[in-house]
């Protein structure tokens, strides 16, 4: 069949590269992002933000500003002192059982600024320009205070305190895995120990659409509407209503319209969302705020920022016998919504990797610093775990003078499908669902032409270039998440998903999902699933998302969960529709419901040619003149799906680089990615997700990194200074797939959103290190991003 014909139902839709149905509005300029929305009587907001990382606020003088043209109202920290701060959604406990430290994250600061960009005042005016002008006229007296920016120094004695009531700036300390004494013993007995001390640098998410909110209040109905660039409208509504403002949830509608990229940074409930909603209640007019790019750099929760020492022990046979990890995780100035779980339950739990390591211990100290809050950014904890493991394995291979491929094959967990063989119980709490790890590496090696490349490596030095090959074989925990499991680990929310399937009387289908698309293409892939299962045309299916008024509930999109959790909820509802449809069909066909089978859009009496179409059954459900007794009319079901386990996608990424011996410039020559994300609904979209993730991961390896100076200034808070990956930085990617179905969800899918960003970073860094070793430079680590200067210095030292 054609892959682009929504009317064709001849052979199903799952597994086909159907072109996206949402594209037309975006390619013609008809997308509707939050900043495109202008409401009647619209007003605009601008903020006064601290230029200092740590400063006492002595006085805020708004006297001149409040009389300026167009100014409607100015609020300062004192005005909202009684309002709660934004909450954290995950509780992590200290090793001794104490609850983590949760200092207030106020909507506006009154006493002290704790990072550059902390909001001191909000100005609301008739126009954006007037708001900005007035904000500039507000005079704040600051007393600058000493600050701390380095996560490894924040807990040291004498470090400036971010919050007076948080001793040693320590939010929590935490450990997971085997008892440390057992790991120490195994490490002491190891024949070889590879040690790596490294920084997994801080990244700025940089969705190209800046965050934007437009909040309004109607006094007559006592209702609020918040348009927000979010990944999870219901979560924002719940957090804002129940935890921050104390306003009734059923009176608040939150809409996440088209959202221009997110990558984690738009999961979180930000202070501006709640503040605008609080302010609109005061002034009775809608208020819009759109972040400038500078604000995006200073305020959108950053990613990563781990400082780590990791040791991997091997026996004489080169089997891994122990892994010991100590990490300092920098959480920034305040706890962001999920900031606490990233370095712990999304990082420590992944340190088994793909290997049979019998003894693992990870120890994390999470600290506050005078920097932008840190939270989930594409991959969230799993890239940090993968970077740690995959760097260690490739480095160990160099140190022991063995092939990194052979070292992996020797240590891989053997294949298991999770059905005939049980899941794999790790040393760090998780049980992997299914995997064939050697399979993806074998396929990657085939695509690469490995032996030839190693031969070329020996030759390349003659041309002034060092060729390097770097590997990364990763695993991730996705399909977030089984509520009971995450609840036991401290999550303050369930992580199920909701899917409603409403069959209209004419047989057309409206689907309401709690997942939220901000580039993932749900309007296409979810429609593929529904059309496939119901045997109808894709044109007859419409996917709705992103509005708390139309979608019953939802936890949103992150953690590669949309299809695995949200899609499964939709499938549950489809199953209910088919079951009810069978009863209606049986009545029409004068048969027993047990004798009805449903396929290709038809209900048929088994073994006969007696059938009714899906459309006929739908019409009968709404015109129930001849209808089973005791059966309700209508054909409309909603389901909550709570997964029984995480899903565990995995893969093999291989980078080939050339390093210029004179300049240290790294050129990425090839990038091979073989990803196993379980069953695939739309291969084109999955491949696109991989491409995008790979570029973000390579961005970390080669280009990106937030740079703070000792005064807590983010010195590269603009696109002129922060190196974003560009079109001319990359070759075409070589992608391959393997399919190991997820055994525990109805679609057998595992999720593809984060894989690229998780697998790619260590592959590239390993390739550069490999290149340097091939030239005789036995360098263990170069701090990311691997700029020409850093690589050149590594070769010179």
């Amino acid at each position: 069949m054609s892959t682009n014909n929504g009317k064709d139902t001849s052979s199903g839709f799952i597994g086909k590269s159907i072109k996206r149905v949402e594209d037309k509005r975006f390619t013609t300029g008809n997308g509707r992002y939050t900043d495109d929305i202008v409401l009647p009587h619209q007003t605009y907001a601008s903020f006064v933000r601290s230029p200092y990382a740590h400063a006492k606020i002595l006085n805020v003088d708004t006297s001149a500003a409040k009389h300026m043209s167009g100014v409607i109202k100015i609020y300062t920290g004192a005005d909202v002192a009684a309002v709660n701060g934004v909450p954290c959604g995950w509780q992590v406990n200290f090793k001794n059982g104490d609850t983590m430290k949760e200092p207030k994250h106020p909507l506006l600061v009154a006493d002290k600024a704790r990072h550059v960009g902390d909001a001191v005042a909000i100005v609301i005016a008739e126009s954006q320009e007037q708001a900005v002008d007035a904000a500039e006229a507000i005079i704040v007296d600051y007393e600058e205070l000493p600050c701390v920016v380095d996560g490894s120094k924040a807990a040291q004695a004498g470090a400036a305190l971010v919050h007076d009531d948080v001793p040693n700036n320590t939010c929590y300390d935490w450990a997971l895995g085997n008892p440390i004494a057992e790991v120490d013993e195994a490490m002491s007995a190891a024949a070889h120990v590879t040690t790596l001390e490294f920084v997994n640098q801080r990244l700025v998410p940089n969705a190209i659409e800046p965050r934007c909110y437009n909040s309004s209040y109607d006094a007559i109905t006592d209702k609020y509407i918040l348009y927000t660039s979010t990944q999870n409208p219901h979560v924002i509504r719940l957090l804002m209503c129940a935890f921050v403002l104390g306003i009734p949830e059923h009176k608040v509608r939150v809409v996440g319209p088209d959202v221009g990229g997110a990558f984690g940074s738009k999961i979180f409930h930000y202070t501006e969302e709640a503040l605008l909603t609080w302010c609109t209640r005061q002034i009775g007019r809608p208020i819009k705020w759109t972040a400038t790019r500078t604000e995006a750099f200073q305020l959108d929760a950053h990613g990563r920022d781990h400082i780590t020492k990791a040791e991997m022990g091997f026996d004489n046979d080169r089997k891994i016998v122990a892994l010991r990890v100590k990490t300092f995780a920098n959480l920034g100035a305040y706890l962001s919504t999920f900031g606490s779980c990233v370095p712990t339950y999304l990082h420590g739990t992944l340190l088994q990797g793909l290997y049979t390591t019998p003894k693992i211990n990870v120890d994390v100290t999470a600290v506050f610093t005078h920097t932008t809050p840190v939270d989930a950014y594409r991959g969230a904890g799993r890239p940090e775990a993968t970077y740690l493991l995959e760097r260690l394995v490739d480095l160990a291979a160099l140190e022991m003078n063995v092939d990194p491929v052979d070292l992996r094959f020797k240590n891989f967990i053997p294949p298991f499908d999770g059905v005939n063989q049980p899941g794999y119980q790790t040393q760090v709490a998780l049980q992997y669902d299914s995997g064939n790890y050697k399979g993806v590496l074998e396929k990657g090696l085939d695509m690469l032409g490995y032996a030839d490349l190693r031969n070329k490596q020996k030759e390349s030095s003659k041309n002034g270039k060092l060729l390097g090959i770097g590997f990364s074989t990763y695993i991730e925990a996705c399909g977030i998440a089984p509520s009971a499991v995450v609840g036991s680990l401290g999550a303050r929310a369930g992580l199920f998903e909701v899917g409603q399937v409403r069959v209209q009387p004419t047989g057309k289908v409206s689907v309401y999902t709690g997942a939220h698309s901000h580039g993932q293409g749900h309007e296409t892939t979810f429609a593929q699933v529904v059309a496939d299962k119901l045997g109808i045309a894709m044109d007859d299916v419409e996917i709705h998302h992103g509005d708390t008024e139309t979608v019953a509930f939802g936890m949103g999109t992150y953690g590669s969960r949309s299809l695995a959790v949200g899609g499964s909820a939709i499938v549950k509802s489809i199953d209910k529709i088919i079951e009810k449809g069978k009863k209606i069909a049986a009545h029409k066909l004068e048969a027993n419901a047990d004798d009805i089978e449903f396929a290709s859009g038809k209900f048929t009496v088994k073994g006969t040619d007696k059938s009714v179409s899906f459309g006929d059954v739908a019409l009968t459900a709404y015109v129930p003149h001849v209808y089973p007794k005791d059966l309700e009319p209508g054909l409309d079901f909603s389901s909550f799906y709570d997964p029984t386990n995480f899903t565990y996608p995995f893969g093999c990424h291989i980078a080939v680089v050339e390093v210029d011996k004179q300049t240290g410039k790294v050129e990425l020559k090839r990038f091979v990615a073989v990803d196993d994300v379980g069953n695939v609904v739309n291969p084109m979209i999955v491949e696109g997700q991989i491409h995008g993730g790979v570029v973000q991961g390579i961005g970390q390896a080669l280009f990106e990194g937030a740079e703070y100076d000792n005064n807590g200034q983010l010195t590269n808070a603009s696109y002129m200074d922060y190196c974003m990956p560009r079109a001319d930085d990359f070759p075409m990617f070589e992608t391959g797939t393997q399919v190991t179905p997820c055994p525990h969800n109805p679609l057998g899918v595992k999720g593809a959103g984060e894989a690229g960003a998780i697998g790619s970073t260590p592959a590239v860094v390993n390739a550069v290190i490999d290149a340097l070793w091939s030239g005789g430079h036995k360098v263990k680590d170069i701090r990311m991003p691997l700029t020409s200067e850093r690589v050149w210095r590594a070769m010179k030292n």
Partner: protein
Amino acid sequence: MSIKITVTVNGVKHTDKVEPRLLLVHYLRDVLRLTGTHVGCDTSSCGACTIHVNGKATKSCTLLAVQADRCKITTIEGMANNGDLHPLQEGFNQCHGLQCGFCTPGMIMTAADLLQHNRKPSEGEIRTALEGNFCRCTGYHNIVKSVQYAAEKMSARKTKPKKEATL
């Protein structure tokens, strides 16, 4: 103080009084309500606001509205011809050259300028032409393929490259 300007946008003449400090992109978005042109940064780096001014790809945040007086402007909303999508608009769909769609209008406008001057650009030429437009979703791979698709399609139609216009 306001200044009167007259601009032709997507074939329609508009006369408005604007503040001298108003950026062209804000004139398009806020005054004309052509919201397909996006703002992604404040340093003229990201390219999301790219339009054509007198036939040439231009970041509309680099011009004041008053500088566009008497200019002919094309935005993403003006790229389809009587409902027929431009080959680039079609190519981005066929080759999955977009995900969130936020950078897409700027990408298409930049690529359209390239294809006006270079009917058969190499992969490297496409990548170089697009290096002033950021995309955080696609990894650029499928954007390059989308432009190649459009180039082939336009070649097949034997479209002659338009004469280069000057600002």
